[in-house]
């Protein structure tokens, strides 16, 4: 994408989210509570122009403990509340907000990530207990420019509506490819029943997963 011209700031658009990722990468995201600028109207741009990365906000949190997390191949050293889950650490401390919170109780699957290659509900894991594990999130699977085949299949088959459960559905679906799951649709349905889609896009989710399995 075009470099950002400081003198002529284009209002970012809601569908132009990559810039934030670029920003995060440049800023060296670890431990940074970042400003986002997904605002379209000039009025709001004035009201809350994104500032440079704030000083490590988490460090100022009383009682925080140091944690080292390996996420998507990068090592992050951050200060978190000892009660912090992997989910909240990803979202609130690392600003990896692709992983979603739907219930915080391991009941909906929206927060599914891979832990050493296996799918888990990140809301059920304490960050302090997974410092030696390889965590993979939806951000580590693919990007809008370079979709993982499963992500491409979800787009192709319309395997979502609102998109909120989608990160978890895709993380489950990618993990499923390596699991002993029967070839039929019913087996896929069963294996994906830990991921609730309240919009009910289940037929298309199954179609997307089967399309990728048939490709393999």
């Amino acid at each position, binding site marked *: 994408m075009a470099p950002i011209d400081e003198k002529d700031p284009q209002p970012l658009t809601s*569908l132009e989210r990559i810039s934030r*990722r670029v920003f995060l990468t440049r800023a060296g995201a670890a431990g940074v509570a970042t400003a986002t600028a997904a605002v379209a109207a000039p009025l709001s741009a004035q009201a809350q122009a994104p500032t440079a990365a704030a000083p490590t906000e988490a460090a100022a949190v009383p009682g925080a403990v140091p944690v080292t997390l390996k996420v998507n191949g990068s090592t992050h050293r951050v200060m978190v509340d000892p009660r912090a889950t992997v989910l909240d650490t990803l979202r609130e401390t690392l600003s990896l907000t692709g992983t979603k919170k739907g219930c915080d109780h391991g009941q909906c699957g929206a927060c599914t990530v891979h832990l050493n290659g296996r799918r888990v509900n990140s809301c059920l894991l304490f960050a302090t207990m997974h410092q030696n594990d390889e965590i993979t999130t939806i951000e580590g699977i693919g990007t809008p420019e370079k979709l993982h085949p499963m992500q491409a299949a979800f787009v192709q088959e319309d395997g979502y509506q609102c998109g909120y459960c989608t990160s978890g559905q895709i993380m489950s679906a990618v993990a499923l490819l390596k699991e002993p799951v029967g070839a039929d649709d019913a087996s896929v349905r069963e294996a994906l029943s830990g991921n609730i889609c*309240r919009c*009910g896009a289940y037929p298309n989710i199954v179609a997307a997963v089967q399309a990728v399995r048939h490709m393999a």
Partner: protein
Amino acid sequence: MQDQAQKAVTESRIIGVSTPRIDGPLKTTGTAMYTSDHNFPGLVYAWPVIATIASGTITSMDTARAAAMPGVLAVYTHENIGPLYRTPPTQGFSMIIDERRPPLEDNVVSYYGQYVGVAVASSVEQARAAAEAVKVTYDKRSHNVEEKLIGTPIAEPGIKKGTARGDVTSAFKNAAVKHDAVYSTPNETHNPIELHASVAVFKDGRYTLYETSQAVVNHRDVMAAMLGVPPENVQVITRFLGSGFGGKLWPWPHAMLAAATARNINRPVKLVVSRSMMFQSVGHRPAIDQQIQLGAEPSGKLVALGHHYVNHTAMEAEYDEGCGEATGFLYSCPNLAVTSGLVRRNVGVPTAMRGPGAVPGLYALESAMDELAVKLKMDPVQLRLLNEPDKDESNGLPFSSRHLKECLTVGAEKFGWAKRTPAVGSMKNEDGATLGWGVASCAWGAMRIDTEMSVELLQDGTARVTCATQDIGGGTYTAIAQMVAHETGLPVAKVNVILGDSALPPGPISGGSWTTASVTPAALDAAHHAVQTLLVSAATFPNSPFKGKKPAELEMVDGTVRAKGSATPQLTMAEVLKGANVKGITGTGKSQGTFGAKEEYSFHSYGAQFVEVTWQPEIARLRVSRVVTVIDGGRMLNPRAARNQIEGAVVMGVGMGMLEGVEYDRASGAPINASLADYIVAVNADCPHIDVTFLDYPDYKLNALGARGVGEIGLAGVAPAITNAVYHATGIRVRRLPVRIEDLMGAPMHLA
């Protein structure tokens, strides 16, 4: 400027063509920004303190311990939250909120889970721990969460009369064949997977509120009134919405808590409502009892239809579910009456949930029609066909476009209905399990809401489209891009759509299945005006090859400008703008709402639901195995997204029929199954085989596109088709949803 006609929308390479969602790559990579994904420097977290009684007053709140906990910045109660106002009475479709009492207004508690305080801290863990450490002392009063509604005291002003014609009382009394029964539906919750959330930024007297809202413009107006600031000081943003199903239409108290705490401590505040709180304080479809009285001639012709319903509401709200929504016009019947009443319970405030009124109303009516068919020894499809009206008998208006009979006949054909044997338990599948086949009709109203849209054609060859309306997940981003692509000839990929921001041109709510019918004409209009202005530029800029031509002699085809009927010379949109040294050309568009206007037609979508259940009495296992849905919803602008919505609605219907219902604990008054493990919604394995058919009858009386909208119609009729199928399989008529195993334990093991 000489205006030209818009391009014909009936012949389009893009409108009416299945189009992948333009936001798909963002949704599948976790890069779409939902409300709680917004983080800001200095952001802190709020967690509400909830009432643990259902009725009474707070006598004291001890916040000292909570306030002294690590990281805690503030703890607020009704004594120190600061000003929060009620919305003033308004007229028409504006400033809507169901729970009008601001949070922490006083010390009164009228439902379990009501917010009584809020803690703010540096981390979400600290905020939650502090909220839970607040000690609240109550003067507890007795509460009422009784599920029985009909036969209990009706709230003032008593029974209300709805649509009526003829003399239903005597017609029913004298009818040759009668059916009279009460049907009950429980409190159902929307439970979108995205938790309700608010991220409030307060700076220099202005609020920027990132909200989970199906209606950012209304949300802005309500929040301004409740915070006591001018509306221009509030901006509400919902870039992506993790659905809502009505639960996110109107603001809920957590939004005021987030905004008020951000104001009080002057830092950005994030408040994410917990899943258990989503059973308490963000609305629900109320519990309802409905009495249906049907009278018919032996031929099956309806002569009397009485529909009397009572729904629960909260202590301080007058939420009427409107169950008679479809009753007045679905069938021809000379004598008809709908009445309603409210009963007060110590529950959170109810609100509209997907297909409000019609969905539970049709559960009752379509169940009763099935029971009447049994009494008449008549096929239930035939009974419905026999009672088809030729106009809307509730108001005398002609139907804009109604093809319910065709929905029923096409559905029967696709389902294989002719093979149905009417005797209970008489059908088996190849594995020996009992099959039950049921049918129900459905209907849902269509409307347009005022919409404004802006389309800017830019030098970089893209179009930028803006509207305040938000995409709930139905595909609004994509539908708007399709319209602009159609009118400009640009590829969809070159159309950048920006939605979900109250600072943009005002757009409709994402509700009522009205969004598509409202936004698409405005998008076409705006794109058309932008193109017209571009043609003026093309005809006038220095060195233009079209110099001397009138704009009306030019046209835009495939994103390029040329003289009509001549392939050369041609200029791209970008070349015209560069030649004229204009960065962008803007066109604005509007579409007029039908709300409050004099109606000339009865606008509704129709459908038929055919359901097969598989029943294994030996293990009491009941599954919805197959659904055939035929929808008469006008023209489908993006058939792929439309099909997805109907399939999803059928899945929700399986939940409504088989799984969903909030249970209140009589002792505490709490909704006790307040989690996704205990309030069961349909998962992937519950999904039946679904076959969706759209009848292709554009409704050009509603708009030039002929589109009505499909958000709700697919849910209507599913639950009664399920219970009708359950009767066919088991002989047991379930008149209280959801169907439970214990309802069926008395079913005979061996039938037929």
